[in-house]
């Protein structure tokens, strides 16, 4: 390789190796449980949260199940052994029992969210987005509750939901992802500390976009939150989720659950921009992100759409899925996963067609740089009952440099002959010719790479809500551009 070529490769490396902007830690006093997991800890969590008995039983049942399970090994991931007894399962900022207004929130925490670009002050918010802010194990504040209540929309922390809407919780919690669904789901079901809850009544188009912002602050605490969204007949909701964490040299565990339920003609659109700390350029530190997300299209013509932009985490293990039970129900999955340095992502979706004339669409874009590993893993299952089902899948990979790995594992399980399944896949690289062409037109290498990547991701970015599309673009630019910050 000659010098100028080396220079150019060096340039590209500089472009994709941006420091993590959200790596600061907030100094606050916390109330923590001792590390480790056992029945006593679980009982303590439940007691602390003043939970009804059914929930404690739900937790204990999940824990029993979890003890018999082992971590899944089928993913294309190399994971350092996790000692589940070293993890703190409950860590909350030390403060008053109940936060009734923003003034009671620790100013340090408010500042943290301000720094992250999330204003929890309703007056200061520019966009029409209601936010549930989760800091380590607890929901700090939920904005615009009153405004939403006028429409009958319930938006609160899951802890509040357990307290105030136990009937809904008893009926739906764990109804899409059972407490023993998989190793990480079982772990979450036994120790989950908080999360968001959202209920959209019949015939209501939710007037605001709802969002949860997850922040891990504590070095030794795991974050185990769960989200439950129920959209009744003819309702519609747009949900956004964002996540960041400080920079530590240890790995933190994040094992979340998101359950969605859509009734007849209801539509749930769930978008995530995940930017957990991904570890340093030697692969040290970063979040282990093991998430189970699943939506149930229970009603006729119901519609669930997942969009995710995954740029952070040291390890991502995540397959937002749809169970298409209702006739003509529709599931979508749009994903951009960017991995750099030693990040590993094994992500994709499952589309389970059970009802007649159900449809699903999968668009996955994986971008790998550095020594990272980026795998798409997806299942399209068409049950014998799912007559005339349709699926379209497109899985594209984009390689930057020559040391990263991209892989695609599409699984098909087709049990009747009336369906139509289409699958497209392609692998592209940033070619020297493309860069040279753009540079000849006066576009520098950072912008050229950024342009090629945003072009590659366009199909997915157009699916994001406006506010998020801009954020995602910024996030990728931050990871990709030298000039920002």
């Amino acid at each position: 390789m000659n010098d100028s070529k080396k220079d150019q490769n060096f340039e590209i490396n500089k472009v994709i190796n941006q420091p993590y902007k959200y790596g600061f830690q907030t100094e606050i006093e916390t109330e923590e449980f001792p590390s480790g997991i056992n029945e006593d800890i679980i009982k303590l969590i439940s007691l602390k949260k003043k939970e009804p008995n059914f929930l404690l039983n739900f937790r204990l049942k999940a824990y029993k199940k979890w003890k018999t399970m082992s971590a899944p090994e089928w993913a294309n991931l190399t994971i350092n052994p996790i000692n589940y007894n070293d993890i703190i399962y409950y860590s909350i900022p030390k403060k008053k029992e109940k936060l009734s207004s923003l003034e009671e929130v620790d100013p340090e925490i408010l500042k943290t969210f301000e720094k992250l670009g999330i204003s929890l002050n309703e007056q200061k918010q520019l966009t029409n987005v209601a936010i549930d802010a989760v800091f380590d194990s607890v929901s700090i504040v939920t904005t615009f509750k009153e405004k939403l209540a006028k429409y009958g929309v319930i938006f609160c922390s899951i802890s509040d939901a357990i307290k105030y809407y136990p009937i809904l919780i008893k009926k739906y919690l764990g109804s899409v992802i059972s407490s023993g669904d998989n190793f990480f789901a079982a772990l979450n079901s036994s120790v989950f500390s908080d999360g968001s809850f959202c209920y959209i009544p019949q015939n209501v188009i939710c007037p605001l976009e709802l969002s949860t912002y997850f922040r891990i602050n504590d070095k030794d605490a795991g974050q185990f939150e769960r989200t439950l969204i129920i959209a009744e007949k003819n309702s519609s909701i747009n949900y956004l989720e964002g996540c960041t964490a400080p920079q530590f040299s240890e790995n933190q565990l994040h094992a979340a659950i998101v359950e969605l339920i859509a009734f007849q003609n209801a539509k749930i659109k769930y978008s995530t921009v995940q930017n957990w700390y991904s570890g340093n350029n030697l692969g040290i530190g970063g979040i282990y992100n093991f998430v189970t997300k699943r939506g149930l299209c229970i009603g006729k013509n119901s519609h669930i759409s997942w969009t995710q932009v995954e740029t952070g985490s040291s390890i991502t293990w995540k397959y937002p899925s749809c169970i298409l039970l209702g006739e003509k129900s529709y599931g979508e999955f749009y994903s951009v996963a960017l991995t750099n340095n030693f990040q590993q992502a094994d992500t994709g979706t499952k589309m389970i067609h059970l009802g007649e004339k159900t449809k699903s669409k999968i668009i996955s874009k994986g971008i790998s740089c550095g020594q990272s590993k980026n795998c798409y893993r997806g299942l399209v299952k068409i049950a014998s009952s799912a007559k005339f089902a349709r699926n379209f899948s497109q899985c594209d990979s984009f390689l930057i440099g020559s040391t990263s790995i991209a892989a695609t594992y599409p699984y098909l399980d087709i049990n009747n002959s009336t369906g139509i399944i289409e699958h497209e896949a392609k692998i592209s690289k940033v070619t020297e010719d493309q860069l040279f062409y753009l540079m000849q037109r006066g576009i520098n290498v950072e912008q050229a790479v950024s342009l090629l990547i945003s072009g590659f991701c366009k199909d997915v970015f157009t699916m994001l809500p406006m506010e998020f599309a801009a954020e995602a673009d910024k996030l990728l630019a931050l990871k990709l551009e030298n000039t920002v910050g």
Partner: protein
Amino acid sequence: MKNTILDIQNLEVFIDNKKIIKNLNLTIKENEIHVIMGPNGCGKSTFSKILAGHPSYTVSKGNILFFSKNLLNLSPEQRSHEGLFLAFQYPVEISGVTNYDFLRLAYNEKQKYLKKKEVTPLEFMELIEIHLNQLKIPSEFLNRDLNQGFSGGEKKRNEILQMLLLQPNLIILDELDSGLDMDAIKIICETIMKNFSSKTSIIVITHYPKILNYLTPDYIHIMREGKIIKTGYIDLIEILEKDGYEKFVE
């Protein structure tokens, strides 16, 4: 006296330890059209990429002055901003990036470099319309992905559209005629000549003399094995057409 735009002295270039340009000298003054001809593999397309700063080539000897600047010290994008334009033989296709976004970015980057005001999307639309009309390109063209699925003729037109937009001083046309029918060659060459000002110069790289019916060259250079072996006027073409390149081998 006319100013010198490009002055190449004693150029020697390697790729992968192989010498591909040897002792090349060339001086181009403003308002001149130079044609570089030669058999396949003689190094003429390589020469165009070297001028534009392709990273695969290593210049081991010689100097290139572009106006008064040392071209070899400039990055590819700086060369572009300074007024060097290469119309590619095979323009690359880039999916997901619209022609419009690409053109506006390229234009604004140059504006920034020249410390001029960047244009808004609306201002840019007005600006680009004029060039589109000149090249008889419909405006839907802007909404398509950059060169993606373009026919050979459309790609070449798009190159010239970029040329009109960026208003370079030194234009290198690398095999402009490949993949074009006669009508398209005519429109494109007429557009180039209409915009050929006293401040610009053109290097035409071709192995097909037909294009020279539309572009009136000042000098013809014959290149072989990385070297200019003969320089003359338009009458060289006649000899070439009769006897081929063999005639010029010493």
